[in-house]
């Protein structure tokens, strides 16, 4: 990545508005619309169940948020290095030393369910 010859992030060559890496599909007119499937996909990713009324509400709210953000596209950033952090500190390390861990009882204290020193969780395929 030496200097400006950095390997470009996969998305940087594209332009426009993206939702999770996918170009936003414009639905109807010139406004940026969040489609119903996208709301549902987002809700699945976040594991938050939404009612039909909420989906409708978020559809319009998220669409307008996207619209606000699209204003940023107008800024010329050709000569600007990507900013990952706003603070200029680099190379914060710790030495490879073992420190004391929590006792098992303490570690499991907030667990809703446990068994033989393990956290108990749902089965996931």
């Amino acid at each position, binding site marked *: *990545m*030496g*200097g400006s010859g*950095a*390997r470009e*992030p*996969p998305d940087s060559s594209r332009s426009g508005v993206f939702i*999770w*890496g*996918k170009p936003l599909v414009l639905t109807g007119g010139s406004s940026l619309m969040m489609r119903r499937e996208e709301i549902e*996909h987002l809700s*699945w*990713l976040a*594991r938050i169940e939404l009612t039909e009324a909420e989906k409708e509400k978020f559809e319009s709210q998220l669409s307008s948020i996207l619209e606000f953000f699209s204003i940023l596209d107008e800024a010329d950033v050709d000569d600007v290095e990507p900013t*990952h*952090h706003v*603070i200029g*500190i*680099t*190379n*914060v*390390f*710790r*030495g*490879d*030393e*073992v*420190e*004391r*861990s*929590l*006792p*098992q009882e303490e*570690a*499991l204290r907030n667990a809703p369910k446990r*068994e*033989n*020193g*393990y*956290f*108990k*969780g*749902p*089965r*996931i*395929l």
Partner: protein
Amino acid sequence: MSQEKTNTEREGEHMGDVKIGLECHAQLLTRSKLFCGCSAAYHYAEPNTHVCPTCLGLPGALPVVNKKAVEYGIKVALALNCEVQRRTLFYRKNYFYPDLPRGFQISQYDFPLAVNGYVRIESDGGERIIRIKRVHLEEDPGRLIYKGTIDVAKYCLVDYNRSGVPLVEIVTEPDLRSPKEARIFINKIRSILEYLGVFDGGLEGSLRVDANVSIAGGERIEIKNISSYKGLERALSFEITRQRGLLRRGIEIKQETRHYDEIRGVTISLRTKEHEEDYRYFPEPDLVLIEISESWVEALKKGLPELPDEKVRRFMQQYVITREHAVALTTDVHIADFYERVAAELGDARLCATWVADVLKGELNYRSMSMREALQRVPPENFVKILRFMKEGKITERSAVEVLREMLDAGGEPEVIIAKKELMRMKDEEIDGIIREVIAENTPAVEDYKSGKKEALNFLVGQVMKKTRGRMDPKRAYEALKAIIAAGA
């Protein structure tokens, strides 16, 4: 394809239409975890005793990068001929799974530690170059335990001792052409990492592999959860056979992710809804940029040990042994060191090569014993003693193998074993007596031999070997029998 393929792919068959790429995740042998001070030696610990707010994902905890893990990662990258990047960055990979306490894994994405390397492997068709796409660091998730198999269990148990153990991920280009080649590659990776002293392939679960496989005419299939060296070849063979079956029946192969079931040896569709963009990678705000200076890389490069490929070249030159022997001796760094000590002490480097690469390695494989374990029972000096007794003609080759076996199984001094098992080679008078006995007991065979049936002598040699329990060379028995019969016994 004009010819029907057989049901299972033959081992080692070079499959021109197969493309395999691997993602290998290897645990780095740091003392502490990647982002916190908890001990990374979780293998024999009680569950959830090597955990702290950071690796449990408790609110407010702050990860700090273990410098040693970064250095180990750079060493791996250099050993795989990669370009170490000047700046590297950690990202959050977001998804929900019980083994991830925070709901994201700290990994790398756009600015990996290193890119563009290669590894040489010895395949059936000679040397092959397998390109390495990238090398990056990430944290291991926790360990999930299911009662019974994954599809019948009602719940899972989670142990976060493994959560945060440093992993180096090595991603290849799709350059591998058969399941066997994939196995050879993964063994080479294991060998290199062990040479570097940053990895222990003998630890359960220390290397896990995801594979992608495609055959001409089909889309790429990803296989997750391959956690053993043998499993890799089996999973790939199964998957290629399955894909060929689909194509033969005219069914389209669509891109998907499948799970490898180690017990049944099959891959199962995961029907996953998550694609790369769904991981919503973004720079980990709690960890700052890592800048890797030229001088840091140079210092680590200077500290690199002699790696397998160089060792093969040196062994061939220094010990004047075949390439096959040199490769066999250098796969495991402990075997390579053992060989060098034995050869230095005995002096006969070629004899030592045969006895270490062929005999000892064969016995170790048979016992699934590692060289490190074997060293407890067969230190180099004792191995040298066996070979010395054999060279001096005190024991036969067959007895030498017997002594070695006994030592591997139960330990002990070679002299004691030789005495206990009465393996000392027999004296001439003793041999004479036994041969006369065999001749007397097998007159029909002796007559057959005298009348020109040469095979009869082999039978008589067998009888002598039986009586002496291998303490005599078959060749010597052969000569002695011939001489005594000719003398008219």
